[in-house]
C-alpha cells in the first residue's frame, strides 16, 4: 500500500509529519474526514464563543429576571422609545457574534469556492 508523507509546518522529516495512505476512499465519510483533518488548519474562535456566550446569557438572564422594571420603562413611549431600539442593537451585536461563532466552531461554514480547472 503506497504511503504519502505530508509535509508538516517544519518541513519533511521534522515536526508533526502526517502519513496518509493512498488507499483512502474519499467516497466514504471516514475517508473524507481523514483527509479533511489534514487539510483544515483554520483556528476556531473558541475564546470569542465563550466570551460572547457568557455575555449573551448574562443579558438574557437580566432581561428575564428584571422584566417588571424593564417593561415599566420600555413601554413608557415617547423618548423612552430609544430603549427597546438600543437594546435590540446591543443583543444583535452580542448574540449575533455568539451565534456566528457557534456555527463556525461546529464546522458549519460557507461553501468554499471550487478550484479552477487548468
Amino acid at each position, binding site marked *: 500500500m503506497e504511503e504519502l508523507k505530508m509535509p508538516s509546518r517544519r518541513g519533511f522529516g521534522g515536526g508533526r509529519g502526517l502519513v496518509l495512505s493512498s488507499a483512502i476512499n474519499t467516497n466514504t465519510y471516514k475517508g473524507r474526514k481523514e*483527509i479533511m483533518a489534514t487539510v483544515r488548519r483554520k483556528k476556531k474562535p473558541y475564546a470569542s464563543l465563550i466570551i460572547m456566550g457568557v455575555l449573551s446569557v448574562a443579558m438574557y438572564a437580566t432581561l428575564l429576571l428584571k422584566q417588571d422594571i424593564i417593561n415599566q420603562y420600555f413601554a413608557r413611549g415617547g423618548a423612552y422609545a430609544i430603549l427597546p431600539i438600543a437594546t*435590540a442593537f446591543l443583543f444583535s451585536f452580542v448574540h449575533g457574534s455568539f451565534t456566528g461563532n457557534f456555527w463556525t466552531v461546529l464546522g458549519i461554514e460557507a461553501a468554499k469556492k471550487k478550484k479552477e480547472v487548468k
Partner: protein
Amino acid sequence: MHDVVNAAANFINLDAMNITYLFLVGFVGGLVSGFIGSGGAFVLTPGMMSLGVPGLVAVASNMCHKFPKALVGSIKRAKYGQVDVKLGIVLGVSAEAGVLYGAHIQESIKKSFGDAGSNLYVSAAFVVILAVVGGFVLRDAWKTYKAGNANEEEKVTKLAKWLQSIHIPGTMIYFKCMNARISVLFTLPLGFATGMLAATIAVGGFIGVPSMMYVMGVPSLMASATELVIAFIMGVGGSLKYAMHGMVDIRLAMIILAGSLFGIQLGAIGTTYVKPFMIKVVMGVIMVIVLFSRALMVPIYMAQLGLIQTIDKGTVKILSNISFGIMIFALALGAFIVLQAMWKGRREEQKRIAQEAFADLKA
C-alpha cells in the same frame, strides 16, 4: 399615552413553555429568512397572539426582532458577496413610505369595519398576493428544474431587460447586482409595494424578492440577500413608531431573536451550498401553502361581517386551528427543504475538497 398604559398592562406573563416555543419558532423563522430574505413573520405574529399577546403588541414586538435579525443576516450574506447595499437602501426608503401608507390604510379599515373587516382585508391580501406571486415563483422554479438548467446562470426576464433599456434622464442609477442601470422611477413603486405589503401581512419580501428577480433582473441569491437590507430599514422605522406608543414587549422580541439569530446565520450559510433556483423553490412552496392557511379564515371573517351566513363557534375553532397548523407546517417544510439542500450541498462539497486535496497530495 392612554394606549401606552394599556399596552404595558397587557404584556403577558412568560413561562418556560412560552419561552421555548418562541425560541423555536424564532429559530425556524430565522432559518427561512436567512435563506429567502423574508418569511417567519407571518407565523410569529399569529404565534404570539396564540399565547394571548394583543395584536398590536405582537406586531410591534415582531418588528423589534425583525430589524436586528435582518441586520445580522444581511451582514453575514454581505460577506458572501450577495448583498447590493445601494439597491437595498434605495428600495428601503420607498418601502418605508409604503409601510406608513399601508399602516394608515389598515387603521382606516379598522375604524370603518372593525376587527373583522381588518382581518378580512389582511386575509384577502394574503390570498391574492400568495396565489399570483407564489404560483408564479413556484412555476418558474419547476420549469428550471424540469429544463435541467439549474446550474446555469439565471436568465434576465424580458420585462427586466425592457425596463433596464428605458433611459429617463436624471433618474438612472447603476446597481452592481444587475450590472445595469435602471430608473429610480421604476424602483419607487416596487419598494412602496413592498412596504405596503409588510404593513398589511407583515412579509414585504413576498413582493420585494420576486419584484427584484423578475421586474428588475436581480439574480435570486442577491435578491433574497438584498431584501434583508430593506427589511432592516423597514424594521427600524416601524419599531421606532410602535416603541413611541409603548407597544414593544422587549422580552418577546429578544426571546424570538435568541432563536432567530441561530437560524438566520444557518440559513445564510445554506445559500452558499445550493443552486440559486432553490430560493424560488422554498419561497414558492411556503407562499402556496400559506395561501391555503389564510383562505380557510376568509369565510370566518365574511361571516363576522354578515356577508355570508353565520358559522357556528365549533366550526370557527376548527377552521382557525387548521389554518394555524397549516401555517406552522409551511414554515417547518420550508426549513426542512433548506436544511436538506444544505446537508446535500455540504456532503458534495466535502467530497470534492477531499478529492482535490488527495489529488494535490499525490502530485
